[in-house]
Protein backbone atom coordinates (compact mmCIF):
# COMPACT_ATOMS: atom_id res chain seq x y z
CA UNK A 1 0.00 0.00 0.00
CA UNK A 2 1.02 3.56 -0.68
CA UNK A 3 1.01 6.19 2.07
CA UNK A 4 -2.18 7.73 0.68
CA UNK A 5 -3.89 4.31 0.77
CA UNK A 6 -2.74 3.68 4.32
CA UNK A 7 -4.14 7.06 5.31
CA UNK A 8 -7.48 6.06 3.81
CA UNK A 9 -7.40 2.74 5.67
CA UNK A 10 -6.88 4.62 8.93
CA UNK A 11 -9.69 7.02 8.12
CA UNK A 12 -12.01 4.10 7.41
CA UNK A 13 -11.14 2.50 10.73
CA UNK A 14 -11.68 5.78 12.57
CA UNK A 15 -15.00 6.28 10.84
CA UNK A 16 -16.19 2.96 12.23
CA UNK A 17 -14.93 3.64 15.74
CA UNK A 18 -16.17 7.22 15.99
CA UNK A 19 -19.01 7.40 13.46
CA UNK A 20 -20.28 10.71 14.81
CA UNK A 21 -17.00 12.64 14.29
CA UNK A 22 -16.24 14.83 11.30
CA UNK A 23 -12.99 13.40 9.95
CA UNK A 24 -12.78 15.56 6.84
CA UNK A 25 -10.85 18.28 8.66
CA UNK A 26 -8.44 15.95 10.45
CA UNK A 27 -4.89 17.35 10.44
CA UNK A 28 -1.99 14.98 9.93
CA UNK A 29 0.43 16.74 12.26
CA UNK A 30 -1.80 17.15 15.32
CA UNK A 31 -2.50 14.30 17.77
CA UNK A 32 -5.75 12.43 17.11
CA UNK A 33 -6.73 12.94 20.71
CA UNK A 34 -6.61 16.70 20.37
CA UNK A 35 -8.94 16.65 17.39
CA UNK A 36 -11.41 13.88 18.08
CA UNK A 37 -12.79 12.23 21.21
CA UNK A 38 -10.65 9.09 21.40
CA UNK A 39 -9.96 7.41 24.71
CA UNK A 40 -7.43 4.68 25.37
CA UNK A 41 -10.00 1.96 24.67
CA UNK A 42 -10.71 3.46 21.26
CA UNK A 43 -7.04 3.92 20.56
CA UNK A 44 -6.41 0.25 21.21
CA UNK A 45 -9.14 -0.45 18.69
CA UNK A 46 -7.16 1.15 15.88
CA UNK A 47 -4.36 -1.28 16.61
CA UNK A 48 -6.73 -4.21 16.82
CA UNK A 49 -8.59 -3.32 13.63
CA UNK A 50 -5.26 -3.13 11.76
CA UNK A 51 -4.42 -6.58 13.01
CA UNK A 52 -7.85 -7.95 12.21
CA UNK A 53 -8.12 -6.49 8.75
CA UNK A 54 -4.50 -6.45 7.54
CA UNK A 55 -2.66 -8.82 9.88
CA UNK A 56 -0.32 -6.01 10.95
CA UNK A 57 1.18 -6.64 14.38
CA UNK A 58 2.07 -3.53 16.34
CA UNK A 59 3.99 -4.04 19.58
CA UNK A 60 2.84 -1.96 22.53
CA UNK A 61 6.07 0.02 22.75
CA UNK A 62 5.39 1.35 19.25
CA UNK A 63 1.95 2.77 20.08
CA UNK A 64 3.28 6.32 20.54
CA UNK A 65 4.09 6.30 16.80
CA UNK A 66 0.37 6.23 16.14
CA UNK A 67 -0.47 9.42 17.99
CA UNK A 68 -0.88 11.51 14.82
CA UNK A 69 -2.09 10.59 11.35
CA UNK A 70 1.26 11.62 9.85
CA UNK A 71 3.22 9.56 12.38
CA UNK A 72 0.97 6.56 11.93
CA UNK A 73 1.29 6.56 8.14
CA UNK A 74 5.09 6.89 8.29
CA UNK A 75 5.27 4.08 10.83
CA UNK A 76 2.96 1.78 8.85
CA UNK A 77 4.50 2.25 5.37
CA UNK A 78 7.22 -0.40 5.81
CA UNK A 79 4.86 -2.75 7.65
CA UNK A 80 2.17 -2.51 5.01
CA UNK A 81 4.18 -2.15 1.81
CA UNK A 82 3.24 -5.69 0.68
CA UNK A 83 -0.35 -5.49 1.82
CA UNK A 84 -2.95 -4.93 -0.90
CA UNK A 85 -5.19 -1.90 -0.64
CA UNK A 86 -8.83 -2.75 0.02
CA UNK A 87 -10.91 -2.97 -3.14
Amino acid sequence: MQPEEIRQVLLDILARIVPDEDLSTLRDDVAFREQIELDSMDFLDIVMELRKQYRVQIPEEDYPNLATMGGAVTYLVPLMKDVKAPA
Partner: protein
Amino acid sequence: MRYDTVIIGAGLSGLAAGIRLAHFDRRVCLLERHTTIGGLNSFYRLRGRTHDVGLHAVTNYNPKGSKSGPLPRILRQLRFSWDDFGFSPQVSSKISFPGVTLRFSNDPGLLESEIALRFPGEIEGFRRLVKFVEDQPWGTAFPTSMTARGTLAEYLRDPLLIEMLLYPVLFYGSAAPHDVELTQFLILFRSIYRDGFARPYEGVRRILSVLVKRFRHLGGEIRLRSGVQAIESRSGKAVAVVLDDGTRIEADTILSSAGSVETARLCEAGLSEDVANGDSPAIPSQVPGELTFFESIAMLDRPPAELGIPETTMFYCGTPRFRYQNPGEPCNVDSGVICSPNNFAYELPLPESTLRLTVMANNRFWFERPSEEDYQEQKRIWRERIFAAALSHIPDFRPNIVDIDTFSPRTIRKYTGHHNGCVYGSPHKQWDGTTHLSNLFLCGTDQGMLGIVGAMFSGISMANKHVLGSQG
Protein backbone atom coordinates in the same frame (compact mmCIF):
# COMPACT_ATOMS: atom_id res chain seq x y z
CA MET B 1 -15.29 -29.13 21.76
CA ARG B 2 -12.96 -26.19 22.08
CA TYR B 3 -13.31 -22.40 21.91
CA ASP B 4 -10.96 -19.49 22.37
CA THR B 5 -13.31 -18.10 25.01
CA VAL B 6 -16.34 -19.47 26.77
CA ILE B 7 -18.64 -17.00 28.50
CA ILE B 8 -20.90 -18.20 31.30
CA GLY B 9 -24.22 -16.35 31.10
CA ALA B 10 -25.98 -14.58 28.25
CA GLY B 11 -26.97 -11.51 30.28
CA LEU B 12 -25.95 -8.03 29.24
CA SER B 13 -22.34 -8.36 30.29
CA GLY B 14 -21.89 -11.74 28.60
CA LEU B 15 -23.49 -10.55 25.37
CA ALA B 16 -21.37 -7.40 25.23
CA ALA B 17 -18.17 -9.34 25.93
CA GLY B 18 -19.19 -11.87 23.28
CA ILE B 19 -19.64 -9.18 20.63
CA ARG B 20 -16.22 -7.68 21.36
CA LEU B 21 -14.52 -11.04 21.08
CA ALA B 22 -16.41 -12.22 18.02
CA HIS B 23 -15.69 -8.90 16.31
CA PHE B 24 -12.00 -9.63 16.70
CA ASP B 25 -12.40 -13.12 15.28
CA ARG B 26 -12.23 -15.08 18.50
CA ARG B 27 -14.15 -18.34 18.54
CA VAL B 28 -16.54 -17.60 21.35
CA CYS B 29 -19.48 -19.42 22.87
CA LEU B 30 -22.06 -18.06 25.31
CA LEU B 31 -23.46 -20.68 27.66
CA GLU B 32 -26.79 -19.86 29.25
CA ARG B 33 -28.71 -22.08 31.64
CA HIS B 34 -32.07 -20.39 31.11
CA THR B 35 -34.22 -20.92 28.03
CA THR B 36 -33.73 -17.29 27.01
CA ILE B 37 -31.13 -14.54 27.07
CA GLY B 38 -31.01 -11.41 29.21
CA GLY B 39 -30.41 -12.65 32.75
CA LEU B 40 -31.52 -10.05 35.31
CA ASN B 41 -32.85 -7.95 32.50
CA SER B 42 -34.88 -10.16 30.29
CA PHE B 43 -38.56 -10.16 29.29
CA TYR B 44 -41.38 -12.66 29.35
CA ARG B 45 -44.91 -13.15 28.11
CA LEU B 46 -47.83 -13.62 30.44
CA ARG B 47 -51.51 -13.73 29.51
CA GLY B 48 -50.85 -12.12 26.15
CA ARG B 49 -48.65 -9.27 27.40
CA THR B 50 -44.90 -8.81 27.32
CA HIS B 51 -43.24 -7.67 30.54
CA ASP B 52 -39.70 -6.59 31.15
CA VAL B 53 -38.15 -8.51 34.01
CA GLY B 54 -36.33 -5.74 35.69
CA LEU B 55 -36.20 -2.64 33.60
CA HIS B 56 -37.23 0.53 35.35
CA ALA B 57 -35.03 2.82 33.35
CA VAL B 58 -31.72 2.54 31.60
CA THR B 59 -29.47 4.61 33.84
CA ASN B 60 -26.27 6.25 32.54
CA TYR B 61 -28.11 7.63 29.56
CA ASN B 62 -26.46 10.35 27.51
CA PRO B 63 -28.28 12.02 24.63
CA LYS B 64 -27.30 11.38 21.03
CA GLY B 65 -24.01 12.96 20.12
CA SER B 66 -22.47 12.91 23.63
CA LYS B 67 -18.84 11.96 23.49
CA SER B 68 -17.84 11.00 26.97
CA GLY B 69 -19.51 8.73 29.48
CA PRO B 70 -20.07 5.00 29.44
CA LEU B 71 -22.90 4.86 26.91
CA PRO B 72 -21.01 6.53 24.04
CA ARG B 73 -18.02 4.34 24.84
CA ILE B 74 -20.14 1.20 24.66
CA LEU B 75 -21.61 2.24 21.34
CA ARG B 76 -18.14 2.88 19.89
CA GLN B 77 -16.65 -0.30 21.27
CA LEU B 78 -19.50 -2.44 19.95
CA ARG B 79 -19.78 -0.43 16.69
CA PHE B 80 -23.39 0.53 17.22
CA SER B 81 -24.92 3.84 16.27
CA TRP B 82 -27.03 5.99 18.56
CA ASP B 83 -30.27 4.97 16.97
CA ASP B 84 -29.75 1.22 17.28
CA PHE B 85 -31.10 1.08 20.82
CA GLY B 86 -33.87 3.63 20.21
CA PHE B 87 -33.63 5.30 23.61
CA SER B 88 -36.24 7.86 24.67
CA PRO B 89 -35.36 10.06 27.65
CA GLN B 90 -37.29 10.15 30.92
CA VAL B 91 -39.92 12.77 31.73
CA SER B 92 -38.87 13.48 35.32
CA SER B 93 -38.48 11.68 38.61
CA LYS B 94 -38.77 12.46 42.27
CA ILE B 95 -37.56 11.52 45.71
CA SER B 96 -40.33 11.79 48.24
CA PHE B 97 -39.71 11.78 52.00
CA PRO B 98 -42.10 12.88 54.77
CA GLY B 99 -42.79 16.54 54.09
CA VAL B 100 -40.12 17.04 51.41
CA THR B 101 -39.88 16.19 47.75
CA LEU B 102 -36.94 16.65 45.39
CA ARG B 103 -37.51 16.41 41.68
CA PHE B 104 -34.77 15.49 39.23
CA SER B 105 -34.54 14.80 35.52
CA ASN B 106 -31.92 14.33 32.82
CA ASP B 107 -31.23 18.04 33.19
CA PRO B 108 -28.96 18.26 36.27
CA GLY B 109 -30.12 21.84 36.72
CA LEU B 110 -33.51 20.65 38.00
CA LEU B 111 -32.08 18.84 41.02
CA GLU B 112 -29.81 21.75 41.75
CA SER B 113 -32.68 24.23 41.75
CA GLU B 114 -34.81 21.90 43.88
CA ILE B 115 -32.05 21.68 46.47
CA ALA B 116 -31.59 25.46 46.39
CA LEU B 117 -35.30 25.79 47.10
CA ARG B 118 -35.78 23.11 49.78
CA PHE B 119 -32.35 23.11 51.39
CA PRO B 120 -31.03 26.64 50.79
CA GLY B 121 -28.26 26.25 53.36
CA GLU B 122 -26.88 23.22 51.54
CA ILE B 123 -26.70 24.40 47.97
CA GLU B 124 -23.06 25.48 48.11
CA GLY B 125 -22.09 22.15 49.62
CA PHE B 126 -24.08 20.32 46.97
CA ARG B 127 -22.31 22.25 44.19
CA ARG B 128 -18.95 21.35 45.70
CA LEU B 129 -20.04 17.71 45.92
CA VAL B 130 -21.00 17.72 42.24
CA LYS B 131 -17.67 19.26 41.34
CA PHE B 132 -15.85 16.58 43.32
CA VAL B 133 -17.81 13.85 41.55
CA GLU B 134 -17.19 15.32 38.11
CA ASP B 135 -13.49 15.84 38.77
CA GLN B 136 -12.89 12.11 39.23
CA PRO B 137 -12.08 10.37 35.95
CA TRP B 138 -14.69 7.69 35.16
CA GLY B 139 -13.98 4.49 37.06
CA THR B 140 -11.44 5.95 39.51
CA ALA B 141 -10.89 3.35 42.24
CA PHE B 142 -10.77 4.55 45.86
CA PRO B 143 -9.78 2.49 48.90
CA THR B 144 -12.70 0.32 49.96
CA SER B 145 -12.76 2.04 53.34
CA MET B 146 -14.01 5.23 51.68
CA THR B 147 -17.79 5.25 51.43
CA ALA B 148 -20.64 7.39 50.20
CA ARG B 149 -21.84 8.45 53.65
CA GLY B 150 -18.38 9.55 54.72
CA THR B 151 -17.97 11.62 51.59
CA LEU B 152 -21.47 13.11 51.67
CA ALA B 153 -20.90 14.23 55.26
CA GLU B 154 -17.91 16.26 54.08
CA TYR B 155 -20.11 18.33 51.80
CA LEU B 156 -23.58 18.32 53.35
CA ARG B 157 -24.86 18.85 56.89
CA ASP B 158 -28.59 18.14 56.75
CA PRO B 159 -29.10 14.42 57.43
CA LEU B 160 -32.41 14.46 55.56
CA LEU B 161 -30.79 15.71 52.37
CA ILE B 162 -28.09 13.07 52.67
CA GLU B 163 -30.75 10.37 53.04
CA MET B 164 -32.71 11.67 50.11
CA LEU B 165 -29.74 11.83 47.76
CA LEU B 166 -28.46 8.44 48.81
CA TYR B 167 -31.73 6.61 48.46
CA PRO B 168 -31.90 6.29 44.64
CA VAL B 169 -28.15 5.64 44.55
CA LEU B 170 -28.40 2.67 46.90
CA PHE B 171 -31.64 1.37 45.45
CA TYR B 172 -30.21 1.35 41.94
CA GLY B 173 -27.02 -0.42 42.68
CA SER B 174 -25.65 -0.98 46.15
CA ALA B 175 -24.85 -4.56 47.05
CA ALA B 176 -24.13 -3.53 50.64
CA PRO B 177 -26.69 -2.33 53.18
CA HIS B 178 -26.96 1.35 54.29
CA ASP B 179 -23.95 2.62 52.43
CA VAL B 180 -21.86 2.02 49.33
CA GLU B 181 -18.16 2.19 48.52
CA LEU B 182 -17.08 5.55 47.20
CA THR B 183 -15.85 4.05 43.91
CA GLN B 184 -19.30 2.75 43.18
CA PHE B 185 -21.07 5.79 44.60
CA LEU B 186 -19.37 7.99 42.02
CA ILE B 187 -20.49 5.74 39.18
CA LEU B 188 -24.06 5.51 40.48
CA PHE B 189 -24.38 9.21 41.36
CA ARG B 190 -23.42 10.11 37.82
CA SER B 191 -25.57 7.45 36.26
CA ILE B 192 -28.67 8.81 38.02
CA TYR B 193 -28.17 12.53 38.63
CA ARG B 194 -25.70 13.66 35.97
CA ASP B 195 -26.43 11.38 33.00
CA GLY B 196 -29.99 10.25 33.49
CA PHE B 197 -32.68 7.78 32.50
CA ALA B 198 -34.02 6.52 29.21
CA ARG B 199 -35.89 3.55 27.82
CA PRO B 200 -36.37 2.03 24.39
CA TYR B 201 -40.01 2.13 23.29
CA GLU B 202 -39.94 -1.67 23.00
CA GLY B 203 -38.25 -2.12 26.38
CA VAL B 204 -35.28 -4.35 27.04
CA ARG B 205 -36.29 -6.59 24.10
CA ARG B 206 -34.93 -3.96 21.76
CA ILE B 207 -31.53 -3.92 23.45
CA LEU B 208 -31.29 -7.69 23.66
CA SER B 209 -32.33 -8.31 20.09
CA VAL B 210 -29.81 -5.78 18.77
CA LEU B 211 -27.05 -7.42 20.80
CA VAL B 212 -27.88 -11.00 19.95
CA LYS B 213 -28.29 -10.28 16.24
CA ARG B 214 -24.89 -8.66 16.11
CA PHE B 215 -23.26 -11.46 18.09
CA ARG B 216 -24.65 -14.13 15.76
CA HIS B 217 -23.81 -12.07 12.69
CA LEU B 218 -20.19 -11.99 13.81
CA GLY B 219 -20.14 -15.76 14.08
CA GLY B 220 -20.62 -16.05 17.84
CA GLU B 221 -22.45 -19.08 19.21
CA ILE B 222 -25.10 -19.10 21.92
CA ARG B 223 -26.30 -22.21 23.64
CA LEU B 224 -29.43 -21.89 25.72
CA ARG B 225 -30.50 -24.54 28.27
CA SER B 226 -26.78 -25.08 28.74
CA GLY B 227 -26.01 -24.51 32.38
CA VAL B 228 -22.42 -24.85 33.49
CA GLN B 229 -22.20 -27.20 36.47
CA ALA B 230 -18.42 -27.17 36.93
CA ILE B 231 -15.24 -25.42 35.89
CA GLU B 232 -12.35 -27.87 35.68
CA SER B 233 -8.88 -26.65 36.49
CA ARG B 234 -5.31 -27.92 36.52
CA SER B 235 -2.37 -26.25 38.19
CA GLY B 236 -4.06 -22.91 38.63
CA LYS B 237 -5.57 -22.78 35.14
CA ALA B 238 -9.13 -23.39 34.07
CA VAL B 239 -9.19 -25.98 31.32
CA ALA B 240 -12.82 -26.72 30.60
CA VAL B 241 -16.42 -26.26 31.66
CA VAL B 242 -18.82 -29.13 32.16
CA LEU B 243 -22.47 -28.56 31.28
CA ASP B 244 -25.46 -29.87 33.22
CA ASP B 245 -25.88 -32.65 30.65
CA GLY B 246 -22.23 -33.68 31.05
CA THR B 247 -20.90 -32.10 27.85
CA ARG B 248 -17.33 -30.93 28.32
CA ILE B 249 -16.16 -27.78 26.55
CA GLU B 250 -12.55 -26.65 26.57
CA ALA B 251 -11.49 -23.02 26.35
CA ASP B 252 -8.35 -20.91 26.58
CA THR B 253 -10.16 -18.27 28.59
CA ILE B 254 -13.38 -18.29 30.58
CA LEU B 255 -15.42 -15.21 31.46
CA SER B 256 -18.12 -15.74 34.05
CA SER B 257 -21.08 -13.47 34.71
CA ALA B 258 -22.61 -15.95 37.14
CA GLY B 259 -21.35 -13.99 40.16
CA SER B 260 -18.29 -14.46 42.39
CA VAL B 261 -19.81 -16.84 44.93
CA GLU B 262 -21.51 -18.81 42.18
CA THR B 263 -18.33 -19.01 40.11
CA ALA B 264 -16.30 -20.17 43.10
CA ARG B 265 -18.85 -22.96 43.55
CA LEU B 266 -18.46 -24.02 39.94
CA CYS B 267 -14.71 -24.24 40.53
CA GLU B 268 -15.23 -26.32 43.64
CA ALA B 269 -17.45 -28.67 41.69
CA GLY B 270 -14.73 -29.05 39.08
CA LEU B 271 -11.83 -29.74 41.42
CA SER B 272 -9.76 -32.60 40.11
CA GLU B 273 -7.25 -35.02 41.54
CA ASP B 274 -4.28 -32.69 41.46
CA VAL B 275 -5.84 -30.36 44.01
CA ALA B 276 -5.81 -33.11 46.52
CA ASN B 277 -2.07 -33.14 45.86
CA GLY B 278 -1.81 -29.45 46.59
CA ASP B 279 -1.19 -28.50 43.00
CA SER B 280 -3.90 -25.84 42.63
CA PRO B 281 -4.47 -22.60 44.50
CA ALA B 282 -7.17 -22.63 47.14
CA ILE B 283 -10.54 -21.20 46.12
CA PRO B 284 -10.93 -18.05 48.19
CA SER B 285 -14.16 -17.79 50.08
CA GLN B 286 -16.50 -15.16 48.67
CA VAL B 287 -18.92 -12.92 50.48
CA PRO B 288 -22.46 -13.41 49.23
CA GLY B 289 -24.77 -10.42 48.95
CA GLU B 290 -28.17 -10.52 50.54
CA LEU B 291 -30.13 -7.57 49.20
CA THR B 292 -33.03 -8.35 47.01
CA PHE B 293 -36.40 -7.08 45.88
CA PHE B 294 -40.08 -7.84 45.53
CA GLU B 295 -41.75 -6.25 42.56
CA SER B 296 -45.34 -5.99 41.36
CA ILE B 297 -46.20 -5.12 37.79
CA ALA B 298 -49.71 -3.70 37.56
CA MET B 299 -51.34 -3.34 34.17
CA LEU B 300 -53.77 -0.43 34.23
CA ASP B 301 -56.78 0.52 32.14
CA ARG B 302 -55.31 3.96 31.40
CA PRO B 303 -51.90 5.64 31.38
CA PRO B 304 -50.56 6.34 34.90
CA ALA B 305 -50.27 10.05 34.06
CA GLU B 306 -54.06 10.20 33.71
CA LEU B 307 -54.32 8.89 37.26
CA GLY B 308 -51.96 11.58 38.52
CA ILE B 309 -48.73 9.59 38.33
CA PRO B 310 -46.67 11.37 35.67
CA GLU B 311 -43.19 10.61 37.06
CA THR B 312 -40.81 8.25 35.33
CA THR B 313 -39.55 6.98 38.67
CA MET B 314 -40.46 7.92 42.21
CA PHE B 315 -38.37 6.92 45.21
CA TYR B 316 -40.66 7.10 48.22
CA CYS B 317 -39.92 6.73 51.87
CA GLY B 318 -42.47 7.03 54.67
CA THR B 319 -39.88 7.58 57.40
CA PRO B 320 -37.16 10.28 57.74
CA ARG B 321 -34.48 7.57 57.60
CA PHE B 322 -34.75 4.81 55.06
CA ARG B 323 -33.67 1.27 55.72
CA TYR B 324 -31.67 -0.05 52.81
CA GLN B 325 -31.19 -3.53 54.17
CA ASN B 326 -32.57 -7.02 54.16
CA PRO B 327 -35.79 -6.32 56.10
CA GLY B 328 -36.71 -8.46 59.08
CA GLU B 329 -40.25 -8.74 57.73
CA PRO B 330 -40.99 -10.34 54.33
CA CYS B 331 -41.10 -6.94 52.58
CA ASN B 332 -40.29 -3.40 53.62
CA VAL B 333 -43.57 -1.66 52.85
CA ASP B 334 -42.50 1.81 54.07
CA SER B 335 -40.32 2.64 51.14
CA GLY B 336 -39.72 1.65 47.57
CA VAL B 337 -39.73 2.70 43.95
CA ILE B 338 -42.75 3.34 41.79
CA CYS B 339 -42.10 3.64 38.11
CA SER B 340 -43.85 3.44 34.82
CA PRO B 341 -42.55 2.55 31.36
CA ASN B 342 -45.25 4.88 30.00
CA ASN B 343 -43.62 7.96 31.47
CA PHE B 344 -40.82 8.48 28.95
CA ALA B 345 -40.78 11.01 26.14
CA TYR B 346 -41.66 8.68 23.27
CA GLU B 347 -42.92 9.83 19.90
CA LEU B 348 -46.03 7.65 20.31
CA PRO B 349 -47.74 6.50 23.50
CA LEU B 350 -47.16 2.90 24.56
CA PRO B 351 -50.04 0.54 23.77
CA GLU B 352 -50.21 -0.79 27.34
CA SER B 353 -50.29 1.07 30.66
CA THR B 354 -48.08 -0.23 33.42
CA LEU B 355 -47.05 0.69 36.93
CA ARG B 356 -44.24 -1.12 38.72
CA LEU B 357 -43.75 -1.08 42.48
CA THR B 358 -40.51 -2.39 43.91
CA VAL B 359 -39.57 -2.82 47.56
CA MET B 360 -36.81 -4.57 49.47
CA ALA B 361 -37.50 -8.13 50.48
CA ASN B 362 -36.30 -10.78 52.85
CA ASN B 363 -34.96 -13.58 50.64
CA ARG B 364 -35.23 -16.35 53.23
CA PHE B 365 -38.91 -15.73 53.81
CA TRP B 366 -39.62 -16.07 50.11
CA PHE B 367 -37.40 -19.12 49.63
CA GLU B 368 -38.91 -20.98 52.55
CA ARG B 369 -42.61 -21.04 51.76
CA PRO B 370 -43.89 -24.52 52.59
CA SER B 371 -46.11 -24.87 49.54
CA GLU B 372 -46.87 -23.26 46.23
CA GLU B 373 -50.31 -22.20 47.51
CA ASP B 374 -48.77 -20.49 50.52
CA TYR B 375 -46.20 -18.75 48.31
CA GLN B 376 -48.94 -17.42 46.03
CA GLU B 377 -51.06 -16.38 48.99
CA GLN B 378 -48.15 -14.54 50.65
CA LYS B 379 -47.36 -12.78 47.41
CA ARG B 380 -50.94 -11.55 47.27
CA ILE B 381 -50.97 -10.43 50.92
CA TRP B 382 -47.71 -8.51 50.69
CA ARG B 383 -48.58 -6.98 47.37
CA GLU B 384 -51.73 -5.57 48.89
CA ARG B 385 -49.86 -4.19 51.88
CA ILE B 386 -47.29 -2.57 49.62
CA PHE B 387 -49.99 -0.97 47.48
CA ALA B 388 -51.84 0.30 50.54
CA ALA B 389 -48.66 1.85 51.99
CA ALA B 390 -47.76 3.44 48.64
CA LEU B 391 -51.04 5.34 48.67
CA SER B 392 -49.50 7.91 51.01
CA HIS B 393 -47.40 8.93 48.01
CA ILE B 394 -49.57 8.38 44.91
CA PRO B 395 -53.29 8.47 44.05
CA ASP B 396 -55.20 5.21 44.36
CA PHE B 397 -54.59 3.22 41.19
CA ARG B 398 -56.05 -0.05 42.47
CA PRO B 399 -59.50 0.29 40.85
CA ASN B 400 -57.73 0.66 37.47
CA ILE B 401 -55.75 -2.58 37.63
CA VAL B 402 -56.63 -5.01 34.83
CA ASP B 403 -53.88 -7.58 35.37
CA ILE B 404 -51.03 -8.05 37.73
CA ASP B 405 -47.86 -10.07 38.10
CA THR B 406 -45.51 -10.19 41.05
CA PHE B 407 -42.02 -11.59 41.37
CA SER B 408 -40.07 -12.31 44.51
CA PRO B 409 -36.45 -13.14 45.38
CA ARG B 410 -37.37 -16.73 44.63
CA THR B 411 -38.17 -15.80 41.04
CA ILE B 412 -34.87 -13.95 40.66
CA ARG B 413 -32.90 -16.89 42.01
CA LYS B 414 -34.75 -19.35 39.81
CA TYR B 415 -34.12 -17.46 36.60
CA THR B 416 -30.63 -16.06 37.12
CA GLY B 417 -29.02 -18.53 39.48
CA HIS B 418 -27.86 -15.69 41.72
CA HIS B 419 -27.19 -16.86 45.25
CA ASN B 420 -29.78 -15.45 47.70
CA GLY B 421 -31.73 -14.13 44.72
CA CYS B 422 -29.67 -11.02 45.11
CA VAL B 423 -29.73 -8.45 42.38
CA TYR B 424 -26.60 -6.41 42.92
CA GLY B 425 -24.35 -9.33 43.79
CA SER B 426 -21.62 -9.53 46.37
CA PRO B 427 -20.72 -6.43 48.43
CA HIS B 428 -17.06 -7.15 47.61
CA LYS B 429 -16.45 -6.23 44.01
CA GLN B 430 -13.52 -7.58 42.04
CA TRP B 431 -12.70 -4.51 39.98
CA ASP B 432 -9.90 -6.14 37.98
CA GLY B 433 -12.05 -9.22 37.29
CA THR B 434 -9.33 -11.68 38.29
CA THR B 435 -9.96 -14.93 40.19
CA HIS B 436 -7.73 -17.58 41.75
CA LEU B 437 -7.36 -19.16 38.29
CA SER B 438 -5.13 -17.32 35.83
CA ASN B 439 -7.48 -17.59 32.84
CA LEU B 440 -10.86 -17.33 34.56
CA PHE B 441 -12.32 -13.83 34.92
CA LEU B 442 -15.49 -12.30 36.29
CA CYS B 443 -17.63 -9.92 34.33
CA GLY B 444 -20.89 -8.17 35.11
CA THR B 445 -22.38 -7.50 38.50
CA ASP B 446 -19.60 -8.90 40.68
CA GLN B 447 -16.82 -7.27 38.72
CA GLY B 448 -18.39 -4.06 39.95
CA MET B 449 -20.41 -2.50 37.17
CA LEU B 450 -24.09 -3.03 37.11
CA GLY B 451 -27.27 -1.88 35.50
CA ILE B 452 -27.78 -2.32 31.80
CA VAL B 453 -25.11 0.09 30.68
CA GLY B 454 -22.75 -0.87 33.50
CA ALA B 455 -23.02 -4.59 32.77
CA MET B 456 -22.29 -4.04 29.08
CA PHE B 457 -19.36 -1.82 29.98
CA SER B 458 -18.06 -4.51 32.30
CA GLY B 459 -18.26 -7.21 29.62
CA ILE B 460 -16.41 -5.00 27.16
CA SER B 461 -13.66 -3.96 29.51
CA MET B 462 -13.04 -7.48 30.81
CA ALA B 463 -12.90 -8.83 27.24
CA ASN B 464 -10.43 -6.08 26.31
CA LYS B 465 -8.26 -6.41 29.36
CA HIS B 466 -8.08 -10.16 29.75
CA VAL B 467 -8.59 -11.58 26.29
CA LEU B 468 -7.86 -9.07 23.54
CA GLY B 469 -5.21 -7.08 25.39
CA SER B 470 -3.32 -10.09 26.71
CA GLN B 471 -2.89 -11.52 23.25
CA GLY B 472 -0.87 -8.57 22.09
